[in-house]
């Protein structure tokens, strides 16, 4: 009834190429943007921001980054945790080394440094594919965590081996450190997510996105058409690295404030982000959001229902949480292997016809 293309004529190719070609999508997007920027900041408190919004925003950035690499370019990576650590440590070194420069630029530069490291570890992808590449990126994961643990220069020779985010502000509003307001942290991350998601959408709908997808779908044919595999794969690793690096920097500086690398950026993190994009949908920007939301919200929801609603002991609920999430993932993947994004697409196609049966 509401969701359809009929009557929404496009007379130029420019119109046909816009970010949201369907009118309803466009208005929904404006509504979401309005709510995210102008409504939510006034409603949230510390609990909401720290339990739900910040992890969702930051994981969504990481998931988009990984989705570019795995979902669009078809290069499997298990090094996300390690690359997030690169972003975090780069940000820490920049924050402590150049305190006069704004945090905003630190985070961008951290993304750039991570992009470089990611390209370095992506070089084997020119020779190896699939599971073998996954193992090679796994090596990156372990090596990077080891490096940040063992080389004291990275944590400024602090006794605990941890890195702590000093207090920094933007436009005189404190963003990091214990005195930062919830809404400021939220808005800071939201700006990054919005801009990066738009960039990801622009890249994936244009030439470079098509070369990535060509490499993913059939690399030999892509090369014969004129895709330079070196350029395509390296650019995917670089862009993905940038996104993951920014998310790592935000994760450390804005969200956690203090990081012990083995605990925070271990192999678990790599799998978590990978699960997000598999559940959300490979090769879909929306899927990255959906997957991040699913895996951030579900534990919170379960905890509230089990502990708050049913009054079970916390430890029992925590263990059951693993069981339930694991089972849900398996069931979900059997029912819809293409993820939440596919469910969303099917729903939209149904909506186009609704309320008529054909």
């Amino acid at each position: 009834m509401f969701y359809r293309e009929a009557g929404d004529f496009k007379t130029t190719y420019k119109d046909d190429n816009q970010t949201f070609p369907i009118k309803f999508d466009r208005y929904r997007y404006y509504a979401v943007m309005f709510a995210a920027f102008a409504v939510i900041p006034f409603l949230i408190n510390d609990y909401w921001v720290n339990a739900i919004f910040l992890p969702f925003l930051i994981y969504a950035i990481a998931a988009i980054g990984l989705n570019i690499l795995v979902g669009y370019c078809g290069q499997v990576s298990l090094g996300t945790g390690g690359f997030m650590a690169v972003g975090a440590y780069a940000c820490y070194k920049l924050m402590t080394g150049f305190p006069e420069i704004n945090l905003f630029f630190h985070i961008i530069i951290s993304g750039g440094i991570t992009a470089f490291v990611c390209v370095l570890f992506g070089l084997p992808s020119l020779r190896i594919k699939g599971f073998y590449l996954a193992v090679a990126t796994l090596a990156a994961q372990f090596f990077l965590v080891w490096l940040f643990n063992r080389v004291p220069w990275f944590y400024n020779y602090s006794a605990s081996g941890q890195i702590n985010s000093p207090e920094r502000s933007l436009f005189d509003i404190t963003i990091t450190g214990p005195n930062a307001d919830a809404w400021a942290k939220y808005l800071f991350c939201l700006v990054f997510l919005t801009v990066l998601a738009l960039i990801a959408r622009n890249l994936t709908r244009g030439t470079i996105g098509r070369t990535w997808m060509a490499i993913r779908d059939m690399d030999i044919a892509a090369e014969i058409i004129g895709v330079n595999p070196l350029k395509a794969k390296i650019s995917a690793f670089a862009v993905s690295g940038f996104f993951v690096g920014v998310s790592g920097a935000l994760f450390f500086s804005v969200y956690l404030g203090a990081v012990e690398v083995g605990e925070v950026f271990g192999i678990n993190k790599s799998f978590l982000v990978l699960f997000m994009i598999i559940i959300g949908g490979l090769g879909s920007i929306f899927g990255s959001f959906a997957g991040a939301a699913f895996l951030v919200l579900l534990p919170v929801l379960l905890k509230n229902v089990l502990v708050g609603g049913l009054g079970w002991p916390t430890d029992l609920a925590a263990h059951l949480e693993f069981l339930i999430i694991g089972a849900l993932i398996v069931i979900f993947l059997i029912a819809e292997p293409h993820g939440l994004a596919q469910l969303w697409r099917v729903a939209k196609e149904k909506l186009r016809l609704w309320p008529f049966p054909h």
Partner: protein
Amino acid sequence: MLDTSDSYVTEDGRTIGGVVMEMKNITLRFGGVVAIKDISFDIREGEIRAIIGPNGAGKSSMLNVISGFYNPQEGDVYYKGALRPPMKPYQVAQQGIARTFQNIALFEGMTVLDNIMTGRLNHMKAGLFAQAIWKGKAEAEEVANREVVEKIIDFLEIQSIRKTPVGRLPYGLKKRVELARALAAEPSILLLDEPMAGMNVEEKEDMSRFILDVNDEFGTTIALIEHDMGVVMDLSDRVVVMDYGKKIGDGTPDEVRSNQAVIDAYLGVSHD
């Protein structure tokens, strides 16, 4: 350096120019197996050149040599008058050689439009940052190239499926989309590897019409491999015949048809 001195006009009024690609004494080996043995032939500008031969004759290997997928151990490839050094397939594509595949090699996860737009790759110049910003250069370029692609879509009569993912299309249409993707590159030489394999008579007629139209309207030089002799004899200006990696015949369809070595290769001959 294109030699157009000996160009001629065919019976149906098309002008065939000078030699645009020349293969000289090509030998290709896979370990001990000799796939192509000392073959020379040329392709003239604007002509339809067929490569035929029984199964395993080395036709597809020959096409792979032309498109840079294999580098021959011996022999030289001259393209537009200059010796072509060994290069990667994507560099050959950038020089203006496009091809289709025997078993369709489309990007199944992408729409028809995206597949054909990928073929325009070598005409798109916007860098990573321009594309990330999108507004401005990248968008203008996308629109300009979309116009070219839409012309090809009209030409091949696939308007109705432009936004369909390729994975959902039937075989005949996939073949057509693959031709569209190759055409989108605006190649100077178009290589077609069995464009009519597995098609029924009507689809073959359609495809033949498209091949002739492409050659006629865009003046594209076409080299094709095909097993349907009727099609080959009707379409092509000149034919190379291969058998066991060797060239056994070269000439107009009529000459080839009356060549005893060719008849022997196809019908078999007693070795006594």
